[in-house]
């Protein structure tokens, strides 16, 4: 078990803010698979939103012979460490936010994702409920990205469906299992006239769907919208539950592997690539979800 690179001489390190959400796990696994296919070594680490741990993880990856580091950092906290790694000949691929240090960046604009979720929800509210209705928005203040996304959701709904009541914007806190259920139960309790929940992520949303079902409100006049394109959410949309829309990210793992390949091959890559992302609703679910799985 000696650390080192295999024949290809390429070792990719993936630095994730957390590996406890389905979305992140998806990226991790995909990238791992792609690296395996190409005969590259792979290592991943999550830093649990702890920027100091991120710095150490970068150092450890460099010590562990990584020559490409995919860093999903949300701010400039790791810039110095990334720069030092770069000086040691490591290529840095940033994913998410663009900061000063990188060889390539794969950008995701959280606010714009938020607006896309909002648009999706507004469309449904306009067509199903005639632009009227009462909804709540779930956001989380655990990090800036998600706050931006939550803001995007609100702004888009206010713009596109101005008559819809946003009853409350709830901060549902950390990604604790069960918080989606609990919050939704409480909201259903508080607002008997609720028509929908627009949520920053699928994890809490699918829990909410279960709570809505349990409360017997799972009818055509209730809609849950979220983001991440997790399997469970897609299944919900496909099965015709009140889960009505999510955002599907094109497998970021594959996209990244593709770009690393180009860098390995010595090509120069345009900086700042936008992550491709699609809204998924009942209308186009067939393209994203295969029921037999």
């Amino acid at each position, binding site marked *: 078990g000696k650390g080192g690179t295999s024949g290809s001489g390429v070792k990719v390190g993936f630095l994730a803010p957390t590996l406890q959400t389905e979305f992140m796990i998806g990226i991790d696994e995909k990238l791992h698979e792609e690296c395996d296919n190409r005969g590259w070594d792979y*290592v991943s*680490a999550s830093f649990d939103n702890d920027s*100091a741990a991120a710095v150490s993880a970068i150092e450890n990856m*460099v010590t562990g012979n990584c020559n490409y580091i995919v860093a999903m950092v949300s701010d*400039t*906290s790791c810039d*110095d460490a990334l*720069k030092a790694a770069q000086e040691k000949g490591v290529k840095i691929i940033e994913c998410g936010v663009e900061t000063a240090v990188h060889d390539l960046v794969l950008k995701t604009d959280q606010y714009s994702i938020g607006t896309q979720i909002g648009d999706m929800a507004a469309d449904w509210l306009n067509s199903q409920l005639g632009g009227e209705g009462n909804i709540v928005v779930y956001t989380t203040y655990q*990090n*800036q990205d998600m706050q931006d996304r939550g803001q995007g959701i609100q702004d888009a709904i206010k713009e596109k469906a101005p008559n819809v009541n946003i009853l409350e914007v709830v901060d549902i806190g950390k990604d604790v299992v069960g918080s989606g259920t609990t919050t939704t139960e409480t909201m259903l309790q508080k607002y008997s006239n609720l028509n929908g929940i627009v949520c920053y992520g699928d994890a809490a949303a699918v829990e909410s769907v279960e709570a809505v079902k349990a409360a017997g409100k799972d009818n055509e006049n209730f809609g849950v919208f979220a983001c991440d394109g997790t399997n469970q959410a897609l299944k919900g949309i496909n099965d015709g539950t009140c889960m009505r829309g999510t955002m599907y990210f094109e497998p970021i793992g594959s996209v990244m592997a593709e770009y690393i390949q180009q860098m390995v091959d010595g090509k120069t890559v345009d900086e700042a690539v936008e992550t491709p992302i699609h809204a998924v609703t009942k209308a186009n679910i067939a393209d994203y979800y295969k029921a037999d799985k």
Partner: protein
Amino acid sequence: MKTVRSFYDKYHMEIGNIVLILVLAIVLFPRLSADYVLHQFVIIVLLTMGLSLEMLSGVLDFAFMAEIAMTTCLGGLCLRAGFPVWVSLTVMILAQMLFGMAKGLLIGKIRVNPILLTFILQQIYQGIAAVFGDAIQAPIPRDYYGSYMFWMIFSGIAVVIYVFLQLLLTHTYYGKYVRMLGENETSVKNSGIRFDICRMIICGISGIVFAQVALIFLFITNGGSAGIGRRYLYPVIAAACLGGINFLKGKGNLRGTVLGSLSMVLLLNLSAGLSLYSYFSYIWEIAILVIAVVIFARESKN
């Protein structure tokens, strides 16, 4: 034979750690970069020394990383508000010391298991730090992380702290007080010692040590954040255990702390070196903790 045996009994921690360090250093040798090891070592050894001081007084602290996060946030805010650097740093050190003293006072006054108390404090502090905001970017003028001087200064501070604590613990009566507190509080009281004040001072000193880490974090991550240092909690406890610090018996010494910290740094490096896949690296960290605990946190059978 008997002397060998008693030598082993006395120094088995040190021997174990040195062997471990040598083996890991050889395994990792090809890429082991001195500056990286130094960075991580300085951070972990400072944390472990601070924690060890508390552990020797019978307190296993779960709140210190959350305190550090609050301090970095505070530092970030100060810098952003345009305070001069030295003012911000003083504020941070004072704040961290106060957090420590508050903790010590609470532990002294509220005589419940300190583990529970520090768990509660951790919860409160994390909440407060998060209220500050996710991340506070501060205008740090230079790349301190890449600066050789920067790390040398903090290495120097670590050495000074080591010498200070070593003197304190082994040669002064305050050191005896520290170990006494881990024992029998009624007896401490009957001995005429204000144990709440003592606790406060001990935790305050630990706070000053932790503050150094808060400073390092602030500089190398260009700001403060609510989650900063969270991942260090268990590795640091493990490092203290590896170093033979036993909070149940108030046993252990700083020499062990240093060796334990170095072992820990190398062990953590190993997981990236072995291309361990994410969960395995998590389990790897845990395994170290568990093994350290199993070997060293055992109560004597008698």
